[in-house]
């Protein structure tokens, strides 16, 4: 140790310990204000023991003197303070919860045309609806409602299997839907299957006119295939049956857009006609899981994603 540092440090007290003859330990006490702040926090801790639940005593515990109010089924209750009571308080009496309830009440009473013309209510629905949609719908339909081709329909375009009005959407969310198309594996022979697929693709301009298309059209519109029962003579679909519009170039199950050649496109359409749509399009029922008002919020939210009619 150099002489100058020894001089500097001589002013500092040592703890009085000495090892190996001359190895000493300086004593640098904490600043007084810091030390007192520390003592004060210890005192506050003791005060907390009396306010909030704290030490175990026997088979119970010190419950604390603090109380808190909350509502259960509209009835006000008061109980000792604990995190669960605090949660119920936050859910029923906090400012955010009360404001939300107030708006939910307005939405519950309003009809769709009133909601659509009220910017405040629409702003509320976009905000709450985003959360509800994220928690309940986004897992299948995607965070932006874009869907998954082959599995879950796109909610952001203007193509609706079951109708795109607010009432239709509300009905679908409330009651769920089971998409169904029969399998045509027994009905069509390979040639016929090929023809019908070619005709279906021609409806949206994917396949050029040909004799095969004409043969397919006869099957589609005749008793041989009977496709027109659900898809209509013009192939524009039937919302009451959940039958897809085949003329609008929007493909939700057969991934036609993902294929390059006509043969590949035909293959995915043929596969769908061959197997039908069974046990794969199952929109769950949300009544019982969500309140009618929440479903209403979601209907408006989905409607304004882009394609509401």
């Amino acid at each position, binding site marked *: 140790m150099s002489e100058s540092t020894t001089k500097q440090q001589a002013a500092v007290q040592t703890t009085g310990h000495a090892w190996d003859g001359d190895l000493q330990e300086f004593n640098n006490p904490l600043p007084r204000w810091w030390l007192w702040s520390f003592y004060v926090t210890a005192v506050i801790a003791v005060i907390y023991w009396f306010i909030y639940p704290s030490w175990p005593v026997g*088979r119970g515990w010190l419950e604390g003197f603090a109380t808190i109010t909350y509502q*259960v089924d509209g009835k006000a209750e008061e109980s000792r303070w604990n995190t669960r*009571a605090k*949660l119920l308080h936050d859910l029923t009496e906090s400012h955010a919860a009360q404001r939300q309830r107030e708006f939910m009440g307005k939405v519950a009473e309003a009809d769709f045309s009133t909601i659509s013309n009220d910017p405040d209510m629409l702003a509320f629905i976009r905000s709450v609806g985003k959360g509800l949609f994220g928690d309940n719908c*986004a*897992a299948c339909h995607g965070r932006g409602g874009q869907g*998954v081709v082959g599995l879950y329909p796109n909610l952001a375009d203007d193509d609706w299997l079951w109708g795109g009005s607010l009432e239709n959407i509300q009905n679908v969310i409330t009651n769920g839907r089971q998409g169904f198309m029969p399998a045509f594996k027994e009905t069509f022979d390979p040639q016929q299957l090929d023809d019908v697929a070619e005709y279906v693709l021609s409806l949206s301009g994917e396949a050029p006119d040909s004799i095969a298309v004409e043969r397919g059209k006869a099957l589609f519109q005749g008793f041989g295939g009977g496709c027109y029962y659900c898809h209509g003579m013009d192939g524009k679909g039937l919302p009451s049956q959940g039958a897809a519009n085949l003329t609008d170039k929007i493909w939700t199950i057969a991934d036609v857009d993902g294929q390059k050649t006509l043969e590949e496109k035909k293959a995915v359409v043929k596969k769908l006609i061959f197997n039908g749509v069974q046990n794969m399009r*199952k929109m769950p029922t949300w009544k019982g899981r969500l309140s009618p008002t929440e479903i209403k919020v979601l209907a408006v939210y989905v409607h304004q994603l882009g394609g509401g009619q």
Partner: protein
Amino acid sequence: MRHENIEVNSGLMILLILTVISIGGLVEVVPLFYLNDTIEKVDGVRPYTPLELRGRDIYVREGCYLCHSQQIRPFRDEWLRYGHYSLAAESQYDHPFQWGSKRTGPDLARVGKKYSNEWHVQHLVAPRSVVPQSIMPNYPWLLERDLDFSDITERLKALRKTGVPYSLTEEEYKANVAAYGKEMADWLDINQAQDSLFAQARNDYDGLPNRITEMEALVAYLQVLGTMVDFSQYDEGYFVEFR
């Protein structure tokens, strides 16, 4: 005891350090084992069936708990997102529990019945095919590998030793019939473990009717999470009483 005596005697110092640092843990943990109200008294919580239990083993094996917690805390934001907060009673037969504190993915405590089996299979094989922004790894082997249930009896017996009410004796079986009904008591009977696993696998969770894959077990487990207690039976004030 003088300061210096402790500082020069490392064995003694280690002992004293361990004593001091264990106080905090002991004070927080030990009372939970004897307090009357630690575990809420609710109906419906039962041990996992053999198939669900194997699913749980796979959940642990794949390290799902590293990203997914199974504990909904009593806060308004969690209530709104996930549903009712978790009860201690709901994980009373979990050994070890899967509460966790790391949420890279969402909490799974109430994921049961929320999505369809088909969705789970699709999502586990290729998460980004249904959730484009997901960062979860793919688990395609779950659908390829057959479930190993050769040691299911031993697994149930081991859990029975820790106090999980799987039945081995006639008496225990009768108690389970009284508590959970005959059908569930059969599924929780160690002597019928394989049969009950086969029976439940007929629900075809993995979409492969002729096989029992690891996916089958995992989806069966995911679909039961958080569904055992029927919260509509209880007044919310009831759960407040336990804390």
